[in-house]
């Protein structure tokens, strides 16, 4: 240890930043293991899966996980879990855990020591940086990154290498939510909280299968329904799901036409005099942006929106295009249903809440669609009141806490700040103790462009942590071929199991996961949660953040990071927290996180905030202000209603590919299934992917339930079993494939078009045809 510290001291004083230093000995803070316990000890943690952030109690004996229960003291889930949460003990114990670093030698991955692997990674990043500049290196992380992982990655890249090419897979799921929040409210993340699910009179699901993807939150909704028999659940969707089974009204629309549906509701709100004029007067400005904005299909696609102020009158004129008749024709939603929706949102006696997730975000107009849902809520004043709020759900346990709040997207810094803003860079440079010139003002590449650049060879060195892009990227054929090209490309992958992504790696670094290390996640309702190291990882596994620190040290950036293996997590978090204080994004103190079941930011004087922008709840709203969208300083604390039109999808069914193809999830598997498929019970529930086919389409083709069929798109072909009338039901002319199965890759078929504002791909819409095999 002393040896290590003396070398670190040498680095701090002696080494020139950027010069690669060899001869360091890796240490692994986790090797000491979890505190030994003779009897089973139960301690709080957080579920490893979705963005709900359910509290779990983890029972361990001598560093081994014995069992998991729902944490009854956690207000998020009050003791309930879904089947994935109850299966947590099995996700760490797969027999093929990666436990040794591997280096590709002569085309084969062979075992290596940590020092060999870390030296190689540092050398490659250092050489590439020197030879090709900061745009030639990239880090691709995850909404499953713990807060300190993302923070270490972002700081190493931006303050160390001067590169903004640090991205995360949350780009593929939450980027449109971020740009939606930023453009409407000037600050990311919801104003409401989960308690609103218990209090609402109406819950509107916008393209959201909450029953399967946020099951514990859905249980809260059903409990609300049980206690409040008048409560209505309205399911706006393109496909019948278990969420539909519980709905009072199912509103089926054609893909992409949710844009017209939302505008149609606003049209009727104005026509029927259901606009809350007082709220609009006090809290809303109107704006319009560019139209005909493209689909991000070309390499090096660029787009910058230009906002122009508009007026309520201009908005009314703009909505003339969305008369009920026209909207019915486009969406397939009957006029009477549109009227009912408008009457519901416009009924000031009802508390109306909206939730959405991938259906709205993975959308070639995802930012617009987020804006349009806010329009409906802002026009009716159904916002910032208990039970009345729009709420964007997240799919990963720390998409909010890490990617969005720490800012591990190519243009972002912590706490809603961006690299393009000189004041933001100055503040970051101050906290990071680097000269401001070190921070690159040019945003890095978004995820799709990053993988395109890697395919072209412009990015040469790519480190992937905690995610599986060679299953989850759209248009996989292109990016998988790119990864195999070699020609100087270098891929590092940190993961816990062999995956489709590790097979492309030049270096594999075995990671410790979940309660094998101390960690922090931030969930959908702004709740930051911490847990202690409770289990001992398999020997050889190292935490993702410490892996980054070890490489950074080897490149001469050791002075940027804490060095004490016992306290580095706390030190990283406390430094990050400085960014958040005093600007409405204040995360709780480390001590408070230790002693609470999480706290919702802004946390001021130890007190959390249930609802943002609301006097009496949010300490940043001054007495007498009532509601204030204080983060949107550019518009004097008002929110923005955007004039956003309907524009068609990037690809729609035609003669050759006559069906809509959508992709998504099933309750039993999480993301690319690398954890859940290793749990025997979950694997037996849904052992492989399938394609949902409408019974009439199946009949026309003469295929039976379970029969293997071929799905063909312009990008790929996939043979898999047909599912007809399963628990979810597609419309006639539609197909749906879950993406969890690495041997039946749904994303060979999908299109890599993206929302030009958020750069989030549209996984929900492309065209395909079905063939008999």
């Amino acid at each position, binding site marked *: 240890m002393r040896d290590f510290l003396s070398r670190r001291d040498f680095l701090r004083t002696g080494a020139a930043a950027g010069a690669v230093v060899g001869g360091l000995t890796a240490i692994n803070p986790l090797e000491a293991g979890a505190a030994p316990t003779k009897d*089973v000890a*139960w301690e709080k943690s957080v579920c490893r899966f979705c963005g709900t952030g359910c509290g779990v*109690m983890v*029972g361990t004996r001598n560093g081994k996980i*014995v*069992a*998991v*229960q*729902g944490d*009854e003291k956690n207000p998020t889930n009050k*003791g*309930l*879990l*879904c*089947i994935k949460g*109850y*299966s947590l*003990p*099995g996700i760490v*114990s*797969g*027999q*093929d855990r990666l436990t040794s670093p591997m280096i590709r030698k002569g085309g084969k991955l062979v075992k290596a020591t940590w020092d060999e692997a870390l030296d190689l990674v540092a050398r490659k990043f250092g050489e590439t940086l020197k030879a090709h500049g900061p745009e030639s290196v990239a880090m691709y992380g995850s909404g499953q990154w713990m807060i300190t992982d993302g923070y270490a990655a972002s700081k190493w890249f931006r303050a160390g290498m001067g590169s903004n090419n640090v991205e995360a897979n949350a780009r593929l799921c939450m980027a449109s939510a971020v740009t939606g929040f930023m453009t409407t409210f000037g600050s990311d993340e919801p104003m409401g909280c989960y308690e609103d699910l218990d209090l609402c009179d109406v819950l509107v699901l916008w393209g959201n299968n909450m*029953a399967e993807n946020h*099951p*514990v939150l*859905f*249980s809260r909704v*059903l*409990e609300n*329904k*049980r206690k409040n028999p008048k409560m209505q659940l309205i399911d706006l969707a393109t496909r019948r799901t*278990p969420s539909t089974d*519980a709905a009072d009204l199912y509103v089926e629309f054609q893909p992409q036409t949710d844009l017209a549906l939302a505008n149609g509701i606003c049209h009727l709100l104005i026509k029927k005099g259901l606009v809350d004029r007082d709220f609009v007067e006090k809290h809303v400005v109107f704006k319009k942006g560019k139209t005909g904005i493209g689909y991000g299909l070309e390499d090096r696609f660029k787009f910058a929106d230009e906002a122009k102020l508009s007026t309520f009158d201009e908005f009314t004129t703009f909505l003339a295009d969305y008369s009920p008749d026209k909207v019915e024709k486009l969406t397939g939603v009957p006029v009477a249903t549109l009227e009912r929706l408008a009457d519901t949102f416009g009924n000031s006696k009802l508390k109306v809440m909206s939730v959405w997730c991938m259906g709205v975000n993975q959308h070639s107009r995802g930012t617009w669609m987020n804006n349009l849902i806010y329009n409906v809520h802002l026009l009716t004043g159904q916002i910032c009141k208990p039970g009345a709020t729009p709420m964007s759900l997240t799919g990963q346990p720390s998409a909010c806490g890490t990617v969005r709040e720490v800012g591990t997207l190519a243009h972002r810094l912590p706490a809603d700040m961006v690299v393009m803003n000189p004041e933001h860079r100055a503040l970051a440079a101050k906290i990071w103790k680097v000269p401001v010139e070190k921070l690159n003002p040019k945003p890095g590449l978004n995820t799709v462009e990053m993988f395109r650049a890697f395919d072209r060879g412009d990015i040469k060195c790519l480190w992937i942590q905690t995610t599986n892009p060679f299953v989850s990227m759209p248009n996989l054929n292109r990016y998988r071929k790119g990864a195999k090209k070699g020609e100087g490309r270098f891929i590092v992958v940190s993961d816990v*199991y062999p995956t489709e992504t590790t097979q492309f790696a030049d270096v594999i670094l075995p990671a410790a996961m979940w309660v094998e290390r101390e960690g922090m996640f931030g969930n959908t309702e702004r709740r930051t949660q911490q847990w202690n190291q409770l289990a001992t990882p398999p020997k050889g596994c190292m935490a993702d953040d410490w892996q980054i620190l070890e490489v950074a040290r080897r490149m001469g950036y050791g002075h940027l990071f804490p060095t004490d293996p016992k306290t580095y997590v706390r030190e990283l978090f406390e430094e990050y927290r400085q960014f958040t204080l005093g600007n409405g994004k204040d995360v709780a103190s480390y001590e408070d996180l230790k002693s609470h079941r999480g706290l919702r930011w802004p946390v001021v004087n130890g007190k959390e905030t249930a609802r943002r922008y609301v006097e009496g709840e949010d300490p940043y709203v001054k007495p007498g202000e009532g509601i204030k969208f204080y983060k949107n300083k550019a518009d004097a604390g008002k929110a923005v209603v955007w004039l956003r039109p309907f524009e068609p999808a990037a690809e729609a069914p035609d003669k050759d590919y006559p069906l809509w193809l959508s992709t998504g999830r099933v*309750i*039993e598997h999480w993301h690319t*299934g690398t954890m859940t*498929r*290793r*749990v*025997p*019970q*979950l*694997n*037996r*529930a849904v*052992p*492989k992917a*399938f394609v949902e086919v409408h019974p009439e389409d199946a009949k026309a083709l003469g295929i039976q339930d*379970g029969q293997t069929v071929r799905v063909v798109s312009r990008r790929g072909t996939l043979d898999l*079993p047909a*599912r007809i*009338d399963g*628990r979810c039901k597609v419309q006639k002319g539609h197909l749906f494939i879950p993406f969890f199965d690495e041997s039946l890759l749904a994303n060979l078929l999908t299109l890599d078009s993206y929302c030009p504002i958020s750069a989030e791909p549209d996984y929900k819409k492309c065209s395909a045809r079905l063939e008999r095999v």
Partner: protein
Amino acid sequence: MRAALLIVLSIAALGLGAGPVKPKAASKLERQMTPYAPPVIPHPVEKGQACTDCHGVPDSGAPDLPHRMIANCRACHIEQQAAKPFRGNAFKAEKELPGPNRATFPGAPPTIPHHVHMREVCVACHGKEPRHGAKAPHPERAACTQCHLPSGAGQ
């Protein structure tokens, strides 16, 4: 006999997607990852069949609900098909952890020796047809927790 069963099972395994299959007398630990996890559904589920068509219906023969009704049963209880493991898993479940004591003092009603979360309806297991626990000697005294206190087992 055993070979025949194996053949049947392997055919079932090959015919994946052919619908839910009743797993061969699955051990309790196969049905539940841990004693704290919800058991899997050990029978095929017919299309259009709701869990509450049988469960919770008196004299239906189906096990009663041990916890209050939560409408989305399938968020926790999942169907099973015959399927090869995706990868091996070394997790070995332990038996439920016993509580610290059986009775507060001699002669007192015994405390509840297991965790009680999601097991609020005692008679679901301890009723006329006991399933996992002992048969209650006096199930007619419906308010069980008036006398039998949680022992803190499990947490």
